[in-house]
C-alpha cells in the first residue's frame, strides 16, 4: 500500500504520541536499573535492490551503538542510536572470460525506541518474560559508482514492531572448579542473564524510489537542492516485513556494571511501490553496561 508523506507523518506522530503516553505512565520502581550502553562489533551486511540489480551485495562492516536503558523486573524502556558502516560487493557468478566486480559502501543509521512490560502469568523467579512495542527507523546510504546515475541508493525503513523478550537467569550460584587436567581454576559465583528478544514488524513503512528510480524532477535554477531533486519521486509505502532478533549473554559485575556478548539478526523486505529492497545483517557485538544510577 502506497501512502502519502502526509499520512506517513500523521501515523508516525500518533505512534510516537502513544509510546510517549505509555512511557510517562511507567514509574520507576525500587529495582529499576539505569544503564548507559556502549556497543561495538562486527557486522555482516547483505542487501539486494531489485530496482538496480538482481544481485545480492554482501560484505563486512562494523557496528557502533549507544543506548539509554531503564530496566526493572516489571518494565523496560530503551532508546538506541546505532551506526553500521561496511563495504559490500556483488555476488557475481564466475566468469569464463573476464570477471566483473562491483563494490559499494553501505551505511545504516538507526534510531530505536522500545518499551516492554512483564507478562506476570508466564514469568517466574528464573525467567522474566516481557512484551511490548518497538519503534525503529533505519536510513540506508549506499553509494555504488558502477550504477551510473543510479549510483546513490537511499531508502528508509521505519517500523512499528511487536516485541517479546525472555531474560533467563543463568547465574552461577556456587563456586565451581573446572578440571582442565593441567590446571584446575576456581570459578566464583556470578550473576548472569541470557536474554532473547524477537521483534516482528506490525506496521512496516518504507521510503523508496519511483518507477524509473532516477527522475528528471523540477529544476529551479541554482536554488535546486540536488538531494531534494534526487528524492523528488520517492514514495512512502506500507508493506513488507521486518524481523529483529537478539540473543545476549550478560555478565554482571560487583560494581553494578555489566558486559555482554550478543548476536543480532536484522532482516527486512521492503516491496515499496515498484521494486523491492531486501536487507539482512548478522551482527556480533560486545556491550558494556554502565550503571548510571547505582543503588
Amino acid at each position, binding site marked *: 500500500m502506497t501512502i502519502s508523506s502526509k499520512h506517513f507523518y500523521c501515523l508516525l506522530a500518533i505512534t510516537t504520541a502513544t509510546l510517549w503516553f505509555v512511557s510517562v505512565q511507567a514509574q520507576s520502581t525500587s529495582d529499576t536499573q539505569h544503564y548507559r550502553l556502549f556497543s561495538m562489533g562486527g557486522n555482516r551486511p547483505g542487501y539486494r535492490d531489485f*530496482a538496480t*540489480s538482481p544481485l545480492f551485495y554482501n560484505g563486512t562492516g562494523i557496528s557502533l551503538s549507544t543506548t539509554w536503558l531503564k530496566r526493572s523486573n516489571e518494565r523496560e524502556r530503551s532508546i538506541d542510536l546505532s551506526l553500521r558502516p561496511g563495504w559490500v560487493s556483488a555476488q557475481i*557468478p564466475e566468469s569464463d572470460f573476464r570477471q566483473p566486480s562491483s563494490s559499494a559502501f553501505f551505511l545504516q543509521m538507526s534510531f530505536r525506541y522500545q518499551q516492554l512490560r512483564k507478562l506476570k502469568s508466564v514469568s517466574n523467579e528464573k525467567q522474566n518474560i516481557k512484551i511490548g512495542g518497538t519503534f525503529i527507523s533505519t536510513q540506508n546510504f549506499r553509494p555504488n559508482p*558502477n550504477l551510473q546515475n543510479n549510483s546513490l541508493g537511499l531508502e528508509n525503513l521505519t517500523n512499528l514492531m511487536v516485541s517479546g523478550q525472555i531474560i533467563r537467569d543463568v547465574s552461577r550460584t556456587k563456586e565451581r572448579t573446572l578440571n582442565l587436567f593441567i590446571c584446575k581454576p576456581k570459578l566464583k559465583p556470578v550473576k548472569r542473564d*541470557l536474554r532473547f528478544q524477537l521483534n516482528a514488524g506490525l506496521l512496516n513503512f518504507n521510503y523508496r524510489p519511483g518507477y524509473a528510480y*532516477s527522475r528528471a524532477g523540477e*529544476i529551479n535554477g541554482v536554488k535546486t537542492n540536488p538531494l531534494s531533486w534526487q528524492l523528488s519521486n520517492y514514495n512512502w509505502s506500507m508493506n513488507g516485513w521486518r524481523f529483529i532478533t537478539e540473543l545476549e549473554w550478560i555478565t554482571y559485575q560487583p560494581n553494578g556494571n555489566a558486559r555482554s556478548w550478543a548476536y543480532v539478526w536484522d532482516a527486512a523486505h521492503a516491496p515499496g511501490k515498484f521494486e523491492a529492497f531486501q536487507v539482512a545483517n548478522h551482527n556480533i557485538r560486545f556491550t558494556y553496561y554502565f550503571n548510571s544510577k547505582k543503588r
Partner: protein
Amino acid sequence: MKNILFVLCTIFVLSSCEKVLLKPNMGSKDPLKNFDYLWEEVDKKYSYFELKNIDWNQVKETYRSQLNSNSSEEELFNVLANMLNELRDDHTNLISPFNISQYNIMLTSPANYYQRTIDEYYLPQPWITGPFNNGFLDNNQIGYIRYGSFLSSFTDEQLDLILNRFKDTKGLILDLRANGGGNIFNVPKLLGRFTDSTILAGYTITRNGPDHNSFSDREDFKITPYDGVRYSKKIIVLIDRGSYSATTFFSLLTKAFPNITLMGDTTGGGGGLPNGGQLPNGWTYRFSISQLLDLNGNNYAEDGVAPEIFESFNWSDLTKDEILDRAILELQ
C-alpha cells in the same frame, strides 16, 4: 553447557532464517537470462520508443535468436550491444570488464571543432580559469570562453573573474562544440549568468509506467539569475554534433533567452536523463528514462537542437575556424 548449546542452536537457526524468507540469489551467467533481463528493463523504462518509432518486440525477435545457453560472453556482449544500439541513443551503454558499447552519435556527422586552430591562430595565450579557456578576440571587442565538458565543475569566483574581464566587450562567444555533457546542475549555474530575471526555459518528463508512452507530469526547468556578476549583452553559443547531453539541455534552454544565438551544427541529442543498472552476470548498463521538451512542448532534443545559424568547419584550411569567424562577424 546446556546454556551454551542453546545459544549456539539459536544462532544457527536465526542465521538460516533469511534463506527461507528472502528470494534465492538471481545471479546467472546464462546468456538468455541476461538477454531477457536487459530487454525487459529497457522495455519497462526506456523513454524514446514512441518518438523514435522503435518496435522493441521486433528487436527481441531479431536478437534473441542469435543466442543460446552455450553462447560465449563475447557473443552475448555483441548481441546485447547491437540490441541497445537499435535505440540510437548515446546515453545507452553496456559495460563489461572487456568492452563498453556505445552508439557514438558524433560519427554520424562531420566534426566541426579543431582545438589546434584556435590555440594557434586565435588565442595563442588564453587564460585558463578553472575549466574555462578564455580570452579576447577582434581587438578586445569580443570575449571568448571555451568550456569543454559539463563534467568540469567551476566556482562562482572563476566566472566572476572571466565576466568582469569581458564587461566592456560587445559580445561573448561561448564555445560548446564537442562538449559531451556532464553534470546537469552546471547548466543552470552557467545560464544564470546570462539573465536578469527567472526564465522558464523547458520541461522534463520521466517514464512512469509499463506502457511505452507512460510519463510523469511536466516538470519545469527554470533558470534563475545569479546574484552577482552577470553578462546581458549578445552571446553566441557554438555547437555541433559533438555537443551532447547536458550541452543539448543547455542549447535547448537558450531558446528562451533573447540575447543568446546558437551557431554551428545541430547538437548530438541526449535529451534523456540516463539511469544505471546491473545484469544477473554483473555487467552494468544505462539508458535514457526521461525526455526534455521545449517551452511549446516540442520534443526534438533527443535528435539534437538545431542552431539558428548553420555554419561548418572547413577541414581543408586548418588556419581558419569558419564557425568562430562567423560568430565574430555576427557580434561586430
